[in-house]
């Protein structure tokens, strides 16, 4: 989901995505790079993202990922449901204890 969110902007290659996530999470999400690639390939297989080879500014070949329309729709739906879930859970957790 976070990967999809990352790709809402310009297409990015794997390392860019890793950096993007690390920056946003401020060290709170420790994810191994290999796990990121597993996630990317899975999303690609589900046709939520697509990939094509491109050239970086350093003139190297890199595999760039972009979100597909299908991916956008999926992200929208998942975000909404995640927010609902998170709100519910946090509402319950933060509810003051009654009767004391």
């Amino acid at each position, binding site marked *: 989901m976070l990967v999809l969110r990352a790709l809402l902007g310009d297409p990015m290659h*794997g*390392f860019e995505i890793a950096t993007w996530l690390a920056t946003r999470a401020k060290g709170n999400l420790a994810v*191994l790079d290999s796990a990121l*690639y597993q996630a990317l390939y899975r999303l690609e*297989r589900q046709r939520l993202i*697509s990939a094509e080879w*491109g*050239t970086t500014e350093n003139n190297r*070949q890199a595999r760039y990922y972009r979100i597909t329309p299908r991916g956008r729709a999926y992200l929208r739906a998942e975000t909404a449901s995640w927010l609902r879930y998170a709100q519910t859970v946090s509402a319950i957790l933060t509810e003051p204890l009654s009767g004391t």
Partner: protein
Amino acid sequence: MRRRRSLPDHVRRAFRLDLGRRRAVERELDDELRFHLDERVRSLVAQGWTREHAEAEALARFGSYEESFIQLLEAARERNEVLTMFDRMDAIRHDVSYAARQLVRAPALTIIVGLTFALGIGANATMFGVIDRLLLRPPVGVRDPAHIVKLAAGIQGNETEQQTFNYPVYRAIRDRARAFDLVVAIDALDVPLGRGESAEDISGLFVSASYFPMLGVTPAIGRFFRADEDVEPLGAPVVVISYPFWLNRFGGETRALGQALELGDRKFTVIGVTPRGFTGLGITGPDVWMPFTAAGAMQGGGPKWATAAGGSWLTIFARVRPEVPLRLAADESMRIAREAAPEAWFTGKPWSFTWLPIMTTRAADRGVSATVTELLGGMSIIVLLVACANVANLLLARGLRRRREIAVRLALGISRGRLITHLLTESLLLALIGGAAALLVADWGGELIQKLLFQDLAVTGSVVNGSVLAFTATITVATGALTGLLPALQISHPELTSSLKSGARDGTARRSRTRRLLLVAQTAMAVVLLVGAGVFVRSLVAVNDMPLGVDVDRAMVGKMNLRATGRLASSTDRIFEQALARVRKVPGVSHAAVGATVPFGQSWGALVLIPGPDSVTHANAMSNIVTPDYFATLGARVLSGRDFRPSDDAGAPRVMIVSEIFATRYWGKRSPIGACLRGAGDPDSIPCAQVIGVVQNIRRQSIFEDSTGFIYLPMAQAGQYISARELVARADDRDPSRVIANVRRAMQTAAPNLPFADVHLFADEPTVRQELRPFRLGATMFAVFGCLALVLAAIGIYGVVSYDTTQRTKEMGVRIALGARSRSVAILVLREGVAVAAAGVCIGALIVMAGAKFVTPMLYETSARDPLILGGVAFLLVSVAGAACLLPARRAVQVDPIVALREE
């Protein structure tokens, strides 16, 4: 971040196919991960890490590299497989929607092609359905039908001539032959069910108790016959009913078991129901099965059925032991039969037995009809080819119109393979539309064929079933591919591009030649089909013109199985007198009479003594005993002398009428009238009867037989010699079908409690129907197919000529500008179409000449090479071709030279 977009991924994937897909995925993964690690190292170094530390950290953040690599490789492979599949599906969907758009854009063409396919494929699906049902399918529910054989006897040259035998022969083979596991006797008879107004005839099969075990069927409910229920002289009155009979009569309820059916003169208890779809060994099954020996008075072999070895009336089947050669089995059976029945017709003569495997005789049992059906199957394939040629032609023409579009697409770099795929998708789509419509055609056509031609085979339900569907699907795809491939290959030809760029039209001539060849082939096939129609129609006409001595379309026969209900001969005579009196009063009946036998039924032989000047001649003849008016009722003319009169009664001098062939055989050109002959019954003891008339030959049992000599005696003088009675009546000018119902009612109510009176036209006698069927079938179907082919050929010729004329507008313009008269321009156009037709006619004629020998045996007094028919067909085709060119010719004549020239 600037980057150059590179080739789309799937193209890369496609290109890498050559390297081997697995290796390619591995390399791609390696590239991506290496890039990732390099970037990580670079970014760490930028943050101030040393190179060694940075590399170690990069690997650490990645996770165990070797292990992850294997997992990621697996994931990447799986991903690629899924995506490739989606790519392919996308490509197909794209092709199909592109093709569909193209078809919608040209609705007229789509409809014409769809219809052409529907007719072509439909004709095939129909014929396949009919052939499949009649000829291909093994009998339902029969175990190991390959080892079931049927006994036939014959003389050299016609080994299977006689296929009926008698009970002593059956019994001897059953008891003594060692070649078989089981031997079965079968006799099919219509059985009277019930009495009075609600009486009816149902079809019955008398079978020995070994019948069901031989076929290996198990009952749907209840049980089959036990051996002790089939014993001489009178077996148990038990009956097995068919599945449809069970549904109709007992609503498919189990309580049917134990119910009684009044069949003939006994009440039979229902003991079992055959499984659904089971029809025994025939194509249509009976309503009821009864133990062979339980028939009593219904017995087909007459009162002495169990011992009389002279006649022949039952068929013998057997399950042969797998290791026994049929030849040996036949010799053994012949030896046994000769010992057991020394007085049988096959003893002491050069007869031999043959055991025929039913799987090979099943088709032959349908006789000429089967052959004609097979022939029609072949014809329907020709129709399909004509349809294919036509569609290919239309697509080719359209392809030519789309040259520019295709050239543009080729220039844009679309591969030839892809273009061919596109065009093929279009033709496949068209074929699918046609195929779907074809099923409707088959459903309707199958019903029509059944109704028109196989009415006596009570096959119900649509001919469309699983195997027809599969067959249709197969030929649909095959036709789609066939018709699409030729235009696709031609149009996508690379030369085209250059020829188009120059704007020239020099590609036309060559392609037009292909189209003309297709047309010639089409015309040739149309010729073959139309000649087929012609010769069959001529045969049918010849058969209808044959003097049968029976006006089969006006004369009807009324049968009532009184013997089966156990009535005595005297009461039978009284009932028929009553019935005759009533039938004569029925409105629409012009004549009616009673005869001991009628044409196409049973017949009795008689020995006749003809006194000559010096000696007495012993002559064999068939004899019949009839009331006055019998000949007029049938429509047979009395050639000389007179018919019987009511005054020729028991007290009057004995009289006799002889048939024409009998008269010529024994008297030559002299008149037999006045001669006094003895015949019928015991010739030595009865007084001689004087010949008072000569009647036209009347058929005995077949339309195609050679006439047999007949003697006719008056009912009032000789009624006692033959006890059987049948009623005949003749309809006047009114619709015979109405008269039939009234005659039936009159007969049925002639006395209380009569069994079912079966009244029908002689034309509806099973023998007549079966004998006429091949010609009706051939004439109808060939005519339909031939007209179809003719219409298709006409459309094809019109299409090509009109297209070519448009292409030659400039040329026409120049000609007209140069002063060509409109007549010569018109002739120019006409010549094109007529030349194609003429070439087709010549080739078609050659095919007819070559193929004639296959068809001739199926015709009656008609040559398949009949020059008149061939000439007529040739004339027809050339005129149709000419007519098809008229419109283009008119257009050519009206070309305005200035407009035509400016266009270029």
